[in-house]
């Protein structure tokens, strides 16, 4: 079985030698060095903010845990300088297949078009993702990552928070303008602020087994309802790097967790599924899950992100990916508030945008779970009807819900400027940027956005003279004499572009406003709104 994948040393920090009222103060302390906390720290550091990142452990954990990382997450990691490493190691996939019994019902492609830098998904063990993020943290001077630093108390003050941190050398205190709690589903910070974390508990148990084997299955997501090897329940098969395969089996609600987890009981089940027993176990875990979120993601000077703020069922890969979307949403806002280029009210939009996204993720993953585990006899009948109708009807296939995979939310946000022009396509305000190839085969819009500074950026389709833009924003010009070429016409099509069309893009790569023919005054107003000045 897999052991911990990386071990890090505790090191005493000079802050621990301070005594009495002499407490070190930092703009941001991030609690929890999982994928979300690490990514957030990197993002903030790249924006020039010093960050202290605390983690109560000193190693990267056992088991693969999250394995599916979305296109959106990869694009974010590109901005953090580690996307390519993730993709190089990961297993790229975009096709999913649904089986009922022994026969295939349905196949879907999550990215059926060309011209995107990143695939729909990669599968990568969470410990690899975390290890690469930790390496990246090591390259960034402004991040101070402290292992075996456990937060044991929190005091909220008017304009900062004070943390008590326990270490192998005893405890010390830290002051932070803002604390971001990325400390997972069992968040201790959440308990310290006394926040409720209520939601729906699902009774069905699921067994995860990571097995090592050489197999010829394609790199696709295979989902079975009522498979011959696991009658009456559902099953999922997914490839990871290093010849590891993720198998997810739905168990009966009354299954005995201890017995079910024993390798000698898991082995025959999986041998029936694979048709052979030439595999070794890497990791076995049994879980139940809940769908829930905090009412408010902000409590005084403490902001919550990732599993600490919201939990979903695993079907749909909406856990880690939505946590990373939290990080990209929060980092630029926190940076601007700390620099006083935006009012503190901008942070409220972190709560409003990301809690709405959490609601959407909970809704989607709850529907998937209900479809997999009907809660009444008639629900089971309706599901059976869908599965049988899917054999000969398109609508039946589309109604099968074996997990709706994570896509970025479209924010209904006070930061967006409502459309005033007519649009027949393209990303609306609140939507994330679709990628497109630009200026040759190797350059993509997502790359050009990074080169423009990952900040407020005007994406404009040339129309003779350039629009006068505010000084401190990036500019991406497509077409015309000095612009990037859109030889394939995909950027133009994906942005419903006409000469003069311009999109104002937020630092997290979401559309704030768009115009057919912007004036300087229109841009200034949209920019002020997007920066939280309204």
């Amino acid at each position: 079985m897999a052991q911990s994948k990386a071990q890090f040393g505790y090191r005493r920090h000079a802050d621990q030698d301070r005594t009495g009222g002499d407490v070190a103060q930092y703009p941001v302390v991030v609690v929890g060095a999982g994928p979300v906390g690490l990514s957030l720290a990197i993002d903030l550091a790249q924006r020039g903010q010093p960050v202290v990142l605390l983690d109560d452990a000193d190693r990267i954990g056992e088991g693969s845990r999250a394995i599916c990382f979305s296109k959106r997450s990869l694009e974010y990691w590109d901005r953090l300088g580690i996307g390519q490493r993730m993709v190089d190691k990961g297993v790229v996939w975009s096709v999913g297949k649904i089986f009922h019994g022994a026969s295939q019902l349905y196949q879907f492609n999550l990215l059926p078009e060309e011209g995107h830098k990143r695939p729909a998904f990669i599968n990568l063990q969470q410990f690899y993702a975390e290890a690469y993020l930790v390496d990246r943290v090591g390259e960034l001077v402004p991040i101070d990552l402290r292992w075996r630093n456990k937060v044991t108390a929190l005091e909220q003050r008017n304009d900062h928070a004070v943390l008590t941190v326990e270490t192998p050398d005893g405890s010390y205190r830290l002051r932070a303008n803002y604390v971001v709690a990325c400390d997972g589903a069992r968040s201790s910070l959440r308990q310290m602020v006394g926040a409720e974390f209520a939601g729906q508990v699902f009774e069905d148990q699921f067994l995860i087994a990571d097995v090592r084997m050489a197999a010829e299955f394609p790199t696709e997501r295979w989902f079975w309802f009522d498979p011959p090897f696991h009658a009456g329940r559902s099953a999922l098969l997914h490839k990871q790097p290093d010849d590891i395969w993720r198998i997810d089996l739905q168990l009966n609600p009354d299954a005995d967790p201890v017995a079910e987890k024993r390798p000698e009981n898991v082995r025959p089940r999986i041998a029936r599924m694979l048709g052979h027993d030439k595999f070794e176990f890497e990791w076995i875990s049994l879980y139940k899950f809940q769908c829930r979120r905090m009412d408010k993601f902000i409590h005084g000077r403490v902001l919550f992100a990732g599993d600490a703020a919201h939990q979903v069922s695993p079907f749909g890969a909406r856990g880690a990916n939505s946590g990373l979307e939290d990080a990209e949403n929060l980092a630029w806002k926190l940076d601007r508030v700390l620099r006083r280029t935006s009012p503190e009210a901008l942070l409220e939009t972190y709560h409003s945008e990301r809690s709405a996204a959490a609601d959407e993720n909970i809704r989607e993953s709850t529907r998937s779970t209900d479809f997999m585990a009907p809660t009444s006899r008639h629900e089971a009948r309706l599901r059976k009807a869908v599965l049988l109708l899917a054999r000969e009807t398109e609508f039946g296939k589309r109604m099968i819900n074996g997990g709706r995979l994570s896509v970025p939310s479209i924010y209904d946000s006070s930061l967006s400027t409502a459309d005033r022009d007519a649009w027949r396509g393209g990303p609306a305000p609140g939507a994330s940027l679709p990628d497109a190839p630009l200026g040759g085969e190797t350059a993509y819009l997502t790359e050009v956005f990074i080169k423009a500074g990952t900040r407020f950026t005007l994406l404009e389709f040339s129309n003779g003279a350039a629009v006068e833009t505010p000084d401190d924003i990036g500019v991406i010009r497509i077409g015309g004499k000095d612009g990037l070429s859109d030889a394939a016409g995909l950027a133009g099509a994906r942005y419903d572009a006409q000469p003069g069309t311009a999109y104002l893009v937020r630092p997290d790569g979401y559309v704030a406003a768009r115009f057919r023919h912007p004036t300087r005054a229109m841009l200034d107003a949209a920019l002020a709104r997007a920066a939280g000045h309204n």
Partner: protein
Amino acid sequence: MGLSTSSNFAKPDDAFRAVVEAHRGLSDEHSAELDAALVLILANHIGDIEVLREAIALAKRRMVDASQQQQQQQ
């Protein structure tokens, strides 16, 4: 376009009869399965979530009213 509750069939008896006959000879379980499939097929044919919601609300209201009346009579 909301849910139509005016009479849409030229011969309503034919429509009622077609549904009844589909259930003839079926066990309750098989009838329930048939209804489940039928509901989904017809819902997709309507293809309008608001109309579907109105239909569900109407069906629920009628069935709940009827069972309350039954209880009062008992």
